[in-house]
């Protein structure tokens, strides 16, 4: 017993890990041994292992020390010890991204990759590709091509997988290896075939026709590798999804996937079933055999198959409820599966498809083991509850109770955040659930260690609390936070209390007392906020409340910082104009979401995509700051979506982005030259602007070699008469062309000839000059605008003949005007024929815009648009532009 105890203790100390106590500096010191002759392979292998261990533990190496270790490591090439050499390859790969000058091993690796020692070749290819950049790739291209079709499968696979990695830095070079990849697809080796298909698809994936041909060919020959078949199924499914119902080869494609359901490999049958179930177009008749496969897997003795099947059923439970119901009995059996992940998925699937009556029973089942499963699966449960709450609003109290019980238990941030999010969604969706939901959240923040979550909830309480039947009951919970240690809590609480003060007149006095206390706070931010709010609240001015407490303008903080810095450097005689700061458009938040979710679905070699932090304008500001001529135009107000001015697959690709400044319009043209035998110089887009516009300056792109994208700019002054600011510009691409050698890109002569290329017209719309503004309480703002005397109002009625549904009309109006829909008014309740759309925005120069569109659906849609703006010409522009 005692010895057992000791062992256990040692384990806790990490006694089992020989590298437990190693230290970077010591190891790097030891690496000097590499320089010694003769090489001691055993000792050096051991030191290299330590270096690799440290790198894999996330230890940071500076580039100088990494480079030093790297050069020392290159000395080991003199040893012929196989194990040591292979460790060196790994070392090269790991250090290639940190150390400088890694190309020094090029010739040694090239030699090993083509040499006689088979044990070296595959690993040498991988190492070589990790140190190769696009300029060096040409030099090893010949060897890569040979390696792809090498008889040794390890070599061929290594070359193929490395090619795939190389596409990131030199896609065009890899494209030239298509014939070799094609040959490798015919390999008997299952991995080689799979990797070859990966490369082939990657080379062709941007060309739909080529993918179609590839699929047509491969579906006819029978691939030996189940991995390759799985991949082919994914490619086929993607093709089907993209083609929609219009594709002519659809039937053939679907038949292929369907036939894979009868493949002898389980992996393939699963992949086929998964694909069919996830296809949007699948009819219930086509679905049946796929569901049978999943059903079969549900009772498989292999846990992986059960897991895969139930997970797939779970994912499609909402889109194909009927199909999933067919598996109900199997799913019920899985509730008691010893694998908790499978059980969780089974129950949540049943929850998604079950009737209202089964909710209570299933929730009870879950609560029996919810404490035993990992957070990741708890999140799955929470998502199921969210779906249920939206489906069965009457069950909200059962579900809310369950959620609040979960909130009280231990759990990580993601889990807690998903619960809070779900409660918030339920509150927003179901007015009946609001009070209970808020009560649960109040209880939660009483004891919540996740600051950001608590602050979010405080914010929500501030927004929703004042509009409940009894706002005063929330104040205690909020004020309790003020007594906490973390100043972030206290600051959040102060802001939330101010909301109550601004919205509920009878609570104002109490709030003022509380805010006065907060003005003694030791933290600057808390004190500042308290003073600020207390001051505004003491003015008893509704419009001040609205503009500075309830609905403050959301301006871009980083732009504000920059502008303020510029301001203090200049002469500060004129007062600072906050209207010159771009507002943060609510769209940016949505853009972040979609970019984060977008995945290729095929080869996810890039790792999880990082969320975009900056707004679209922020990103452009960095790019535009390289152009000196643009620096005098003031802050960037709005950047448009990218507009294509050429058809796809033409000789030149030109894309335009319209940047609005207070008084100027900047057109940015990104031009790509797709002709390998032409060098373009002095590339510019000549525009023929509509009346009233003045061209201030053109900035051409001096040189545009093959396959590169260059940028030219035009700076225009907006017309003084606002109504002229909307119009159509003709556009022509102009350049000096020089014929050149396609392989080197060097022009044949110095003489060029001028040429031009007609582009599509460019439209300038109101939305280019408007930023969206999100209003939580649009109605209050509208009423206030009616009372205030600085707003002008315009009104117009007309019919939108080109659209046939309210949704479509809303989409068009929102897009064309570039205004933000408020209070969820862009969602039309089902079956309604009359709807009011509420919009808000701000015009370049700072004029506020509110708009109301009453829509009536008969055969066409009739719209009455009322616009209020703090500048008459802006209101006019919007009303006339929409006609």
């Amino acid at each position: 017993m005692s010895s057992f105890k000791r062992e256990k203790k040692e384990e806790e100390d990490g006694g089992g890990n020989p590298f437990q106590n190693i230290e970077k500096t010591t190891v790097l010191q030891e690496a000097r041994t590499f320089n010694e002759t003769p090489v001691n392979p055993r000792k050096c292998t051991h030191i290299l292992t330590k270096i690799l261990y440290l790198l894999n533990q996330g230890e940071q190496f500076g580039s100088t020390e990494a480079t030093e270790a790297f050069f020392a490591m290159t000395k080991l090439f003199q040893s012929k010890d196989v194990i040591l050499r292979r460790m060196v390859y790994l070392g090269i790969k790991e250090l290639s991204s940190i150390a400088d000058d890694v190309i020094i091993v090029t010739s040694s690796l090239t030699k090993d990759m083509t040499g006689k020692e088979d044990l070296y070749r595959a690993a040498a290819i991988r190492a070589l590709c990790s140190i190769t950049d696009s300029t060096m790739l040409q030099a090893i291209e010949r060897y890569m091509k040979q390696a792809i079709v090498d008889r040794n499968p390890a070599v061929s696979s290594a070359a193929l997988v490395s090619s795939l990695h190389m596409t990131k830095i030199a896609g065009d070079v890899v494209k030239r290896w298509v014939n070799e990849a094609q040959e490798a697809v015919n390999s008997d080796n299952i991995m080689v075939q799979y990797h070859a298909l990966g490369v082939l698809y990657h080379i062709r994936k941007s060309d739909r026709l080529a993918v179609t041909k590839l699929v047509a060919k491969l579906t006819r020959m029978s691939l030996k590798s189940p991995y390759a078949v799985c991949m082919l199924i994914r490619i086929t499914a993607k093709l089907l999804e993209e083609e929609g119902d219009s594709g002519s080869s659809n039937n053939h494609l679907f038949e292929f996937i369907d036939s894979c359901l009868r493949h002898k490999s389980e992996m393939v049958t699963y992949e086929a079933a998964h694909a069919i179930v996830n296809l949007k177009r699948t009819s219930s008749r086509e679905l049946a055999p796929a569901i049978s496969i999943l059903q079969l897997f549900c009772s498989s003795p292999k846990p992986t198959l059960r897991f895969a099947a139930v997970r797939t059923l779970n994912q499609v439970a909402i889109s194909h409820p009927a199909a999933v119901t067919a598996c109900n009995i199997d799913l019920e059996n899985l509730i008691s599966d010893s694998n908790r992940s499978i059980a969780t998925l089974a129950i949540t699937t049943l929850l998604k498809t079950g009737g209202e009556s089964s909710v209570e029973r299933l929730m009870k089942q879950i609560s029996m083991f919810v404490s035993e499963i990992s957070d990741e699966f708890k999140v799955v449960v929470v998502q199921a509850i969210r779906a249920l709450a939206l489906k069965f609003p009457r069950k909200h109290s059962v579900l809310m109770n369950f959620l609040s019980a979960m909130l009280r238990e231990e759990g990580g941030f993601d889990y807690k955040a998903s619960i809070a999010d779900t409660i918030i969604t339920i509150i927003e969706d179901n007015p009946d659930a609001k009070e209970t939901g808020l009560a649960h959240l109040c209880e939660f923040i009483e004891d919540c260690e996740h600051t950001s979550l608590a602050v979010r909830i405080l914010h929500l309480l501030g927004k929703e609390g004042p509009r409940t039947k009894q706002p005063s009951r929330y104040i205690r919970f909020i004020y309790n936070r003020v007594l906490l240690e973390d100043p972030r809590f206290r600051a959040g609480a102060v802001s939330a209390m101010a909301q109550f003060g601004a919205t509920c007149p009878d609570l104002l006095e109490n709030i003022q007392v509380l805010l006065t206390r907060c003005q003694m706070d030791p933290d600057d931010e808390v004190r500042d906020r308290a003073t600020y709010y207390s001051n505004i609240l003491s003015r008893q001015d509704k419009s001040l409340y609205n503009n500075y407490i309830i609905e403050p303008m959301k301006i871009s903080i980083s732009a504000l910082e920059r502008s303020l810095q510029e301001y203090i450097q200049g002469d500060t005689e004129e007062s600072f104009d906050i209207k010159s700061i771009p507002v943060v458009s609510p769209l940016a938040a949505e853009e972040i979401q979609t970019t984060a979710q977008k995945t290729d679905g095929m080869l996810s070699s890039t790792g999880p995509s990082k969320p975009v932090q900056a707004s679209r304008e922020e990103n452009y500001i960095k790019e535009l700051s390289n152009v000196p001529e643009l620096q005098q135009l003031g802050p960037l107000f709005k950047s448009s979506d990218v507009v294509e001015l050429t058809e796809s697959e033409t000789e030149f690709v030109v894309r335009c982005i319209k940047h609005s400044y207070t008084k100027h319009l900047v057109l940015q043209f990104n031009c790509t030259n797709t002709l390998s035998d032409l060098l373009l110089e002095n590339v510019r887009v000549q525009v023929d602007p509509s009346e009233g516009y003045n061209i201030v300056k053109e900035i051409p792109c001096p040189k545009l070699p093959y396959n590169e994208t260059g940028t030219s700019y035009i700076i225009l002054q907006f017309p003084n008469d606002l109504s002229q600011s909307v119009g159509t510009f003709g556009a022509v691409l102009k350049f000096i062309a020089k014929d050149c050698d396609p392989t080197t890109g060097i022009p044949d002569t110095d003489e060029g000839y001028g040429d031009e290329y007609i582009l599509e017209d460019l439209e300038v719309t109101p939305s280019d000059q408007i930023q969206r503004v999100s209003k939580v309480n649009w109605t209050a703002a509208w009423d206030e605008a009616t009372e205030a005397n600085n707003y002008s109002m315009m009104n117009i009625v007309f019919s939108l003949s080109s659209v046939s549904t309210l949704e479509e009309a809303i989409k068009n109006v929102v897009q064309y005007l570039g205004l933000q829909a408020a209070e969820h008014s862009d969602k039309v309740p089902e079956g309604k024929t009359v709807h009011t759309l509420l919009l808000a925005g701000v015009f370049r120069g700072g004029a506020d815009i509110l708009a109301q569109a009453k829509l009536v659906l008969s055969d066409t849609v009739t719209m009455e648009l009322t616009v209020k703006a703090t500048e008459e010409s802006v209101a006019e522009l919007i009303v006339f532009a929409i006609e």
Partner: protein
Amino acid sequence: MGLLSILRKLRSSPEKELRLLLLGLDNAGKTTILKMLAAEDINHITPTAGFNIKSVIADGFKLNVWDIGGQRKIRPYWKNYFENTDILIYVVDSADKKRLEETGIELYELLGDEKLQAIPLLVYANKQDLPNSLPASDLAQALGLPTIKDRAWQIQSCVAIQGTGVKEGMEWACKTIKKK
């Protein structure tokens, strides 16, 4: 020399490993010399993007010969391979008169380096087969070899592609080491 005798020789003096550094401008013929020493095929030599390392047995020594590429972009890395060098071998293309000055400058950089202090220098006056090549004695003058006082040095004319002169140079190298 038969395999057995090599083995015997190695066993008798196991720690006699020498490190030779082969430098010089690109296209001088370094890799050709290296392959000649190792009795390998010289028909498919390409410019060295990095380095080659070969071990050859000669005169009872195991010679580890480091051939580092001479292209301008690789020259900055030479210094990483100076440590523990026993003999510095500098190869010159005797027919490349245009780059005589350049090769001289590079050589003097090397001779001034602390890590290569007092290391014996062997200069191969390569490509003597070419019609307008400079004889070894002229080359020695042009490179200022006679002024070298701080180390043993030797110039050896050779034709690497035929192998003439290479062996003689190596013999001098081994002899110089033995004397030390």
